[in-house]
């Protein structure tokens, strides 16, 4: 009897140790992976504080011997940082507001109503997401150029092409935004709409007073996504906006040439400046993300609902 008891005790202890080991292993693996994830950011951070001597020195790997803010100072000067930051902010916010509003309406129509061609249109929505931006932009080029000729003005270097695309629901990743809205709006109980209908509310009143007011958080999430994507986008922006409003992404892309004119250093040295500049350009996003990370994850989770 005693023997059996001891045996079972040792077994349970064994199991405990095993599960503890599993947990430790899990932490080790996760920490290793997160290090790989954060590696570029950490490298960027350490490089951007380094002086020229530290960058060249072979024995300085991570921690600079002197923390210098010189790189940041130079990048702020070269990029005309504050002005460009302000531009990036209002342009991204404008596109994001337009995209969010149109996506909400479209998502609402898909979620609430049953109509002819609903499936076809939904397939077209997904197709419009899959078709590469490069394909569509080649044709947009002709459309906007000819339209400019007809109206006697040039659309290049202005915000109009992108504004019109955002307004007509074809901005960057608009399809995903529509799908996020659609999957969230589908969860709103139909009884609420019925009740509003009985009380004599019209379509826009129903949309505003029920759908929008219930889903304020998801609207914020979509706005944030749209804002971030517009901030980082630079393919369409390069085609239509180059020479117009200076944005951070454009400035960063031309940073190397800009920098070559102003200082003319070797490859390794300009790496430090570039790191500082990149860090400066993603800093606003980083701050936004740290404050709203829960909402971001939540938003992506609701995409998965339609994933099935």
């Amino acid at each position, binding site marked *: 009897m005693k023997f059996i008891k001891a045996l079972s005790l040792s077994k349970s202890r064994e199991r405990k140790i095993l599960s503890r080991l599993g947990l430790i292993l899990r932490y080790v693996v996760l920490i290793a*992976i*997160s290090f790989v994830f954060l590696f570029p950011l950490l490298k960027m951070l350490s490089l951007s504080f380094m002086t020229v001597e530290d960058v060249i020195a072979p024995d300085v790997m991570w921690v600079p011997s002197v923390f210098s803010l010189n790189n940041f100072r130079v990048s702020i000067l070269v990029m005309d940082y504050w002005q460009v930051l302000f531009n990036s902010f209002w342009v991204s916010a404008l596109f994001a507001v337009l995209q969010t509003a149109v996506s909400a309406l479209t998502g609402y129509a898909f979620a609430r109503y049953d109509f002819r061609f609903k499936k076809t249109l939904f397939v077209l929505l997904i197709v419009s997401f899959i078709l590469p931006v490069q394909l569509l932009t080649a044709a947009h080029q002709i459309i906007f150029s000819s339209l400019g000729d007809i109206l006697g003005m040039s659309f290049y270097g202005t915000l109009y092409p992108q504004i019109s695309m955002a307004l007509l629901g074809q901005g960057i990743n608009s399809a995903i935004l529509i799908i996020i809205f659609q999957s969230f709006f589908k969860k709103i109980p139909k009884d609420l709409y019925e009740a509003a209908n*009985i009380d004599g509310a019209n379509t826009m009143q129903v949309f505003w007073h029920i759908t929008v007011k219930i889903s304020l958080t998801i609207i914020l999430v979509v706005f944030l996504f749209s804002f971030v994507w517009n901030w980082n986008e630079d393919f369409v922006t390069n085609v239509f906006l180059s020479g117009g409003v200076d944005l951070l992404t454009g400035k960063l892309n031309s940073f190397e040439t800009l920098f070559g004119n102003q200082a003319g250093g070797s490859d390794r040295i300009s790496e430090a400046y570039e790191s500082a500049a990149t860090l400066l350009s993603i800093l606003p996003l980083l701050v936004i993300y740290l404050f709203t990370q829960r909402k971001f994850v939540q938003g992506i989770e609701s995409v998965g609902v339609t994933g099935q």
Partner: protein
Amino acid sequence: MKKTLTRGWDAMASLYDRIRKSSVWKRMRGLFSRNKPGKRDNPTTPYVLMLPWLIGLVIFVIIPVGMIFFMSFHDVLKTPQGFSFDFVSFENFLFAFTNPIFYQSLLSYVNMLFVYIPVILIMSFLIALLLNNDFKFRTTFRVIFFLPVVLLSNATLNNISTTSGENNAFLNIENTFIFSMIDAYVPFMADFLSGMFGVLIVILWFTGVPIVLYINGLKKIDQSIYEAAKIDGGNAWQILWLIIIPNIKSTALVIAIFSVVQVGIFNTNPLYGLLQEQIMMTATNLGIAATYALLYTIVTLLFIMLLIFILRDKDIVVMARKEYNRTRELYEKQKKHSEEAADEVY
């Protein structure tokens, strides 16, 4: 002068009248007008709600796709009178396939898809499995793994590839003993491995959204299935292969397609620079840009079809067919029954 002015005014007025009387306008106003209590929405309401998107779909997606097909068979040149289109049949395609810069980039694009997509699918699945259970600091890890979604841009990717490139001690595997051994015996394997490690960080930065989608898919699997499997004596390995993977396949398909799109819109794509250059040079033949873009799209779509073929849910089709047969049987039985009943009545 005055006559033309009034005529112009008349035309404007009639246009305004026509717009006011048109059905679309009425429907638009209908959205804001008061409903009679209990009245249902008009069947055209959804179309009016999605009108901006529909117009955008036609102008910015459907027409452009048609235009690209048209342009790829033409020499498109910008003249002072607008664009001129000269029919050249397949010359643009011939040019594309004889231009080594293009077809080599296309090949390396395909190569990239075959490396990136499976690695993204597998890595994000493993990370999602690790993150699925509850444990301390879970949210912290999630915040870290989701960070790239916010920061992913050409600038950051550029910076990653320059700072964590070959001259980096952390990923310098080429000097390790095992690697040189592999290199000596199986050179192509060594090439593959060094390529993998070189781009591992970049690939990992694409796994942010896939991880969350996988976690979401894992949560949707019914917990009682796990319990049933455990009671039947299934171990973790069997649960993974027989329960989790078949159930997660549809999520994996969504993730795969999403990743194909994501990988394509950044400059990790070997074709990115070439296409951008061609599209931005309106002075030269835009027909070639269209041809490049068309070929690129066709390759992408073929790859997506391959993904659908691999990851499609066979079970769903089988189940649907079974269900269909069963309902048909039941229906026929019922019909027979009711006919018999009807016969009895007469």
